[in-house]
């Protein structure tokens, strides 16, 4: 593979936005059958580069060459015609249509030549078989898991028989099992001569799959290296620069031994959207100042458990106590007033009011507080001042407090949610997948805020499928398998590998 023919070359591409040089003379190449990872923090210039490859953005200087031919810049059709295929980070499928219907829809949109239904079905069967993608064509997309939806996206792209496949953060939302499957598929594709560009920020993912890695930082290429020649630590240092390279492996502090119990969950049972009694008979308690990690493979009922504690999802049985008081019968609103805070797993759906401003989103968290309103009348000035200070305190970068929340990057959206939830100094923080899809710096910032909340006396519950994250945050862990509590362990007495075995052996770190 190493000596494959050069498929694509990015030659000295530069792109400036007002106030920032997003891409500064970026050069790298992709060979036939190669998996080439572009690695970098948010802001390193990856998104801009993808935009230029796609033809959405017009570079200020430089060229994209495919087979030595220069692509016309800023023209998306050029990329498609020359065999570039993209798999987006956010899936563009219609949830209420079936798999086959989605594929027909996109083929009419994309390629210009409308294929017959039979032709598409034939090609799909062929592609599915060739890549080991087993999908029921007649099932509606909304019933598919995130990983399966990605497979549909992948097929969608492969129908056009691309020679270069570009995937933007493909592993961001997948479980470990699904990631493994994806890597197999990509390996298989590369084996057939397809060149693959993988955009990512997770070191482990990139090292596991890539042949070569190009590290970007602040719009420049730091280096292009062979994956065999580097380790995660070296790559991390390249990504963030030598200064911040030493990631603080600080052990989470255990709560004071005499700390009182803040949250107590007794024999809680909860139904999922499609699974009755998904969570059964779970009991645990969390002390003031303690961070409890909830480990489990995705879909074990952890998210539903937190939703039930928050009152978002009705419990089938059991009680939730806050400082000894039964709050099981209270509404979400009442529970919030008692000091519960919630960071949802799906921030677009449950976390933010996308069309509203940053200031308004923050004001919503302060409902009923004299700081922002009295007798139902809003104090616009205090809302503005408070929003500014929270943006500063939580490091939310946006052009102003009036910017719509939907336009922020994922990391900033998550910080916005944390700011809204933690600004009230809650008694209990329930946190679901707190850093899913976030880059290194944002992840560190989110972790720091959660630690600070615990230090201020909050009882924090963190659900995550990232065992490293749980070990970095929590002082105690509970393990949930198929909706049942199957283990409890102190964080300093277990390694990620041992924890993986506890979860069912699937994930060895």
């Amino acid at each position, binding site marked *: 593979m190493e000596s494959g023919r050069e498929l694509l070359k990015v030659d000295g591409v530069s792109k400036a936005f007002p106030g920032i040089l997003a891409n500064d003379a970026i050069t790298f190449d992709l060979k036939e059958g190669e998996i080439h990872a572009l690695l970098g923090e948010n802001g390193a210039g990856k998104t801009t580069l993808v935009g230029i490859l796609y033809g959405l953005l017009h570079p200020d200087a430089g060229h994209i060459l495919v087979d030595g031919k220069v692509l016309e810049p800023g023209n998306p059709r050029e990329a498609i015609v020359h065999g570039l295929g993209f798999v987006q980070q956010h899936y563009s499928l219609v949830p209420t249509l079936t798999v086959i219907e989605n594929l027909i829809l996109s083929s009419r949109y994309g390629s210009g030549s409308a294929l017959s239904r039979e032709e598409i079905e034939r090609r799909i069967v062929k592609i599915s078989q060739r890549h080991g993608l087993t999908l029921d064509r007649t099932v509606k997309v909304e019933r598919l898991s995130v990983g399966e939806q990605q497979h549909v996206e992948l097929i969608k792209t492969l129908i056009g028989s691309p020679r270069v496949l570009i995937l933007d953060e493909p592993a961001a939302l997948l479980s470990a099992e699904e990631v493994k499957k994806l890597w197999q598929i990509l390996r298989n594709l590369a084996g057939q001569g397809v060149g693959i560009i993988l955009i990512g920020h997770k070191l482990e993912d990139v090292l596991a799959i890539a042949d070569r890695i190009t590290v970007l930082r602040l719009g420049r290429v730091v280096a292009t290296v062979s994956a065999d020649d580097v380790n995660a630590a070296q790559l991390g240092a390249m990504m963030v620069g030598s200064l911040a390279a030493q990631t603080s492996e600080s052990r989470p502090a255990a709560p004071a031994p005499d700390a009182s119990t803040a949250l107590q969950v007794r024999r809680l049972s909860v139904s999922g959207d499609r699974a009755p009694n998904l969570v059964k008979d779970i009991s645990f308690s969390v002390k003031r100042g303690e961070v409890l990690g909830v480990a489990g493979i995705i879909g074990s009922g952890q998210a539903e458990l937190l939703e039930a504690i928050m009152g978002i999802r009705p419990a089938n049985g059991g009680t939730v106590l806050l400082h000894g008081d039964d709050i099981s019968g209270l509404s*979400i609103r009442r529970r919030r007033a008692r000091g519960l805070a919630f960071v949802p797993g799906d921030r677009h759906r*449950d976390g933010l009011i996308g069309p509203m401003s940053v200031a308004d989103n923050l004001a919503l968290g302060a*409902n009923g507080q004299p700081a922002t309103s009295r007798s139902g009348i809003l104090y616009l000035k205090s809302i503005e001042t408070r929003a500014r200070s929270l943006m500063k305190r939580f490091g939310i970068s946006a052009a102003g407090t009036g910017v719509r929340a939907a336009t922020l*990057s994922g990391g*900033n959206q998550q910080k916005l949610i944390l700011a809204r939830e933690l600004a009230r100094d809650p008694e209990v923080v329930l946190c679901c997948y707190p850093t899913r899809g976030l880059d290194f710096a944002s992840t560190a910032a989110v972790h720091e805020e959660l630690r600070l909340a615990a230090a201020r006396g909050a009882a924090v519950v963190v659900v995550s499928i990232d065992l490293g994250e749980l070990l970095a945050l929590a002082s105690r862990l509970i393990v949930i398998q198929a909706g049942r509590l199957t283990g409890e362990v102190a964080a300093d007495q277990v390694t990620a590998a041992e924890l993986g075995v506890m979860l069912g052996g699937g994930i060895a770190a």
Partner: protein
Amino acid sequence: MTSIVTASTARNVMISFVAVILAFVTAALLLTAAGQNALQSFAGMASTAVGSNFAVGTTLTKAVPRLLPALGVALALRSGLWNIGAEGQIYLGAAAAAAVALFGPPLSFPLGTALALIAAMIVGAAWAAVPGALRAYRGLNEVITTLMMVYVAVQLTNYLIEGPWLVPNSTWPATPLIPFAFKLPLIWPGTLVNGGAILAIVGVAVLAFVVNRTTFGLWLRAIGGNERASEVIGVPLRPMIVAALAASGAFAGLAGGIEVLGVRGRLLEGFSPGYGFEAIAIALLGRLRPLGILGASLLFGALDAGAAGLQVASVGISSAIAPVIEGLAVGYLLAALGLAEIISRRREARSALQSAVRS
């Protein structure tokens, strides 16, 4: 913050303005095709819409029963709820005001009038709260329930007018005239403009204040932006849905009360030619902004007032050209909005890309 709001407001105004201009151009083509001199026809419309103090007064009087329900429709729409039933709330508000004036204690302006109008608002609110509660607690689509309740409301009003409240020996179904003491006074000598116009302007200010400056408005916008997240964040979703539709109905009910106490002087069958339905078009044309709705309802009022002048100026042309222009304006608006949506999505995609790069 202000720059974004004003920028989008400027664009909103532009879109609606272009839609109205296109509607007039199309109407001119239609008139020409029908063998009329379009300019002469429009001049005839202008004469009875804005040609004199009296004409302006007529326009204002005809704008009021459209403006208030439109404010209500907009309020509900800010939370993503469609109040299609303003027409029914207008009729029942009118009935409530008439009942207070006809059968209540012998009071006079301002106390009696205020009581009658408050009754109109309460009944309008209560009528709209029913679909609100059905939506909030039973999941019934409010588009259907609010609309269906229009027919119930209109028939209920008809029953009252033709039955127990019918004026004796009448050839036209109507109640007796309400006591003069209850009437909204005329406020502009030489015209028919009554105190209801002032209430309508107050309504514009109230909507602006409620939506932008109160917790209720913040919740309203939050629900409109993301219903599910609002509930997770702690907005009392179900009570808010009921309250939003009730508040919407109160605006419509007030319009009905003003028609009885300020314009007609009695409750009569079919007094609204569909103000409540026009209100939906006006709310959209006004882009849900209080001042935009004020402008759109003045336009619709002027078209209504101008229809009389059109018939004088252009023999053989039906006054129905006025609603044709209204319909065209809304049609063009929806088309323009579709177009603007496409443009802004492109722009947003680009700016999202830029902000992703910056962060």
